[in-house]
């Protein structure tokens, strides 16, 4: 099981739930499980077969640019956060 | 278009002749006609000092000089600071003191610093800051430039 933190802006879709535990081995599966639990959430997180532009995933506070194919391990904490670059 | 003028001048100690239209600046002449691209254009209106050259012993913004004005003049650019392969102390001190980052303002600073140190070799921090305020740098915060100019002054005094 991994713990997925629901972005505050998507709490309307989860009835206020802020985190859930799901069984998944990569982010694609995380999103699929979320969609089963909270219909409509997938299209808020993804654009077609990719994470929505401007979003990235943090797994145990480690950023990944691998998007949906990033692997997750049991016990991981997952956040969806805005992408940032710099100057 | 006005006819081009023939101009005879001295650049970095060597006699030079060139043709230029009256509305071409010395900076354009140096860069585009003579291939001396060391002098940089940062603003083209005298507010950044990146194009500083020495004209008859004084530092000027070459963007605010017409090419035709340098008839019979002596012009010194960044390309003329080093003596063959020997860097001038001000160049050495900029390098050793990391007084440049992107390097675009560096030619102007070197020319102005050399002019200052030739006039005031022991220039204090305030004198350096006052006289080089016409040269903008956006990378260094100026700290290392001031120190490099001070160091160069000392080195020039030692070698004399």
């Amino acid at each position, binding site marked *: 099981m991994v713990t997925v933190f629901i*972005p*505050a*802006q998507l*709490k309307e879709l989860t009835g206020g739930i*802020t985190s859930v535990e799901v069984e998944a081995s990569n982010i694609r599966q995380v999103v699929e499980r979320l969609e089963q639990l909270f219909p409509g959430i997938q299209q*808020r997180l993804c654009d077609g077969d990719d994470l*929505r*532009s*401007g979003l990235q995933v943090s797994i145990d*506070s*480690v*950023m990944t640019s691998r998007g949906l194919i990033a692997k997750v391990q049991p016990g991981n904490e997952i*956040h969806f*956060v*805005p*992408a*940032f*670059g*710099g*100057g | 278009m006005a006819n081009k003028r023939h101009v005879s001048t001295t650049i970095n100690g060597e006699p030079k002749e060139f043709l230029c239209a009256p509305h071409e600046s010395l900076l*354009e002449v140096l*860069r*585009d006609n003579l291939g001396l*691209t*060391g*002098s*940089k*254009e*940062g*603003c*083209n*209106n005298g*507010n*950044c000092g990146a194009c500083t050259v020495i004209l008859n012993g004084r530092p000027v913004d070459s963007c605010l000089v017409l090419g035709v004005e340098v008839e019979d003049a002596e012009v010194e650019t*960044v390309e003329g600071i*080093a003596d063959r392969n020997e*860097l001038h102390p001000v*160049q050495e001190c900029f*390098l*050793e*003191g*990391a007084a*440049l*980052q*992107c*390097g*675009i*303002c560096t030619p102007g600073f070197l020319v102005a610093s050399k002019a200052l140190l030739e006039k005031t070799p022991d220039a204090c921090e305030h004198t*350096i*800051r006052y006289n080089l*305020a016409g040269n*903008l*740098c*956006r*990378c*260094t*915060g*100026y700290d*290392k430039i*001031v120190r490099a100019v001070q160091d160069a002054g000392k080195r020039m005094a030692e070698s004399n």
Partner: protein
Amino acid sequence: MIKNNGNGEYRVLGTRPVRHDGADKVTGKAVYTADVQLPGMLRGFILRSPIAHGLIKSIDTSAAKATPGVHAVITSADMPDVGDKIADLGEGAVNLKYLSGNVLAQDKVLYKGHAVAAVAAVDIHVAEEAANKIIVEYEELPSVTWVLDAMQDDAPLLHDDLHTDSMGAKSENPSNICTHMHFEKGNIEDGFAQCDVVVEREFKTASVHQGYIEPHASVGDWNEDGRLRIWTATQGSFSARQQTAEILQIPIGDVVVTPCEIGGGFGGKIAVYLEPLVGMLSKVSGRPVKISMTRADVFEATGPTPGSYMKVKIGATNDGKLIAGEAWLAYDAGGYPGGMIGPGCMCVFSCYDIEHAVVDGYDVCLNKPNTQAYRAPGATQVAFATEQLVDEIAKQIGMCPLEIRQLNAAKEGTVRVDGPKYPPVGLVECLEALEESDHWKSSLDGPLRGRGIAAGFWFGCGLKSCATVTVNHDGTVNLLEGSTDIGGSRTSLAMQLAEVLGITSDDVNPMVGDTDSVGYTDVTGGSRVTFATGLAAYTAGRDLQTQMISRAAEEVWDCSPDEVTLENDGSFTHNGESKTFKELASQLFKHGEPLVARAAVSPENPTNGFGVHVADVEVDPETGKVTVLRYTTIQDAGKAVHPSYVEGQLQGGTVQGIGWALNEEYFYHDNDTVANASFLDYRMPTMLDLPMIDTIIVEAANPDHPYGVRGVGETPIVPPPAALANAIYNATGTRMEQLPMSPPVLWKQLQSESAEA
């Protein structure tokens, strides 16, 4: 000064060699884009919008085309239709329609200076004269340049197809608000209920420009073989290649970008402006074309970084524990969507461990140039707000400003408002270094003098980098990498390679390759080069050593590779026989194939750079002028590879922050056109406006880099406005709620406060 927390002993790291490109840069030989000369090259000039907002009704280029000496005139009609497609540019994604529209306006101009047409001619004067003969008929529209005005329902709408995005959900009605972000942590009501003291203020900051001294410049040559060669002033050659290819709708492989020496960027030379135009002008004219922007073009049509409105509220207990924070932020996006609001939201409370927080952020289109990154984009604005409120709380509860920061400083395990937890970070160490510093211990006497401190944070990113190492006969090496070198990074990379291999920095010849010759490398930005491309150089060095062990085993010592030992100094030993890197490399060169190593890396974690600044000021109450008397910048560099250039980054960023704090701003005429598009009236700091900037480098190792390196370039711009505001408060008792804190503003505020008193 270097404060080493015991990272281990290095031979090369921490020394201060002369940079490899130094001699070229002090003799005028270094080739910047404007210095490029190609046979038959034309010069380009861009016609720009004189108005802030309007529809383009018609463009008549006939007189320009008929001008003797003119070889090409283009408008958006000559550019391919890019459609409505999002392109991922590595550091961020962008809608190509907007990217292309910013390069050359389509049906609308969205800010004064928006490019409308471009001319290529035999010289710059002819090109300019011809461009001025182009007749553009505009239907002028109402315009807006203040972010709160642009958010109103009845504001002039820049894009009638733009709907507010709230994490994938779109607003029903079109709006200038491109994005709404929202973050929550803990329970904000509970949080404020626990507080003994709550402070809240509104702040606003003006648009500021990156202010690099080199104007944007590009040279394009659309070759007869169909390939487009570009020489350009860019922070990222691969990003420039991709943007150019996308805008011109040609295959990426048909574009080769050569990054020239670059005269500063600070985030403002990532977006393309000129590259597609010189490409298209070259295609039309059949000649190479160079365009250099004027300084006015740079101010009016590139950068700036967002102006902002911020309302921030922070609560604490009487013993100084920060409990709750709330922020409402609105940032300029400029003419097209895609601003800096995300990092603004993530950084507003990033220096502190605050249990309950809510942040709302809005990215807003208005009639300014499309805003661009500027050194820690979005973070300086929010630090100006938060760091003042933290001081205000300290004042109210009678706590020292340093102590309240030490009590609440973010550290390993602190959860940011956007969710992730920090790995080991160095804010606590920076605050300790401040406490021990001469500056902090010194007294500051005299009326109207004050001292202020502030902390700052920037992520620092990883992204993709490549490096190739080739070995010469004599055991010296060449390092080919793809990060454009803006401030000496060639040398900081060469030093890391030299450290691995046990050679000197001078034994490495670093070179920045073009997009045909080096592996994909992301932009020089995000404080990433010394960290990420440094990691590539390190990894390539390790690859080389692995190859050499195996070759030495076979060709030199006739043993198994496990019997060859790589020593800490980079030498190789077998059975008591030792060979230095250079000895072994020369020997292998003689008898076998050349040695080539490579690395491609994509480190993904931020490097988390924290800094703390302390400023002493004196205020002239009769004029409102602030003089910076003394300034110290403290920052965690993880490991300072070349301390001089780390200090330089700290000093340069600090001074940009001081300029932002005290004077820099865009002024607008009544019709929303920029009034001060020159270095004269934009007023960046000159040498005479500053004291020496003292630096203290803290080295709290980054666990994600073999030498502990963190990015350092961006954080130093974050604290200065707040530190100076706190110092001004300390000197005068007045709180500054707007940037810049220019003399007229401060004078006026002191006047009205003394009238009230």
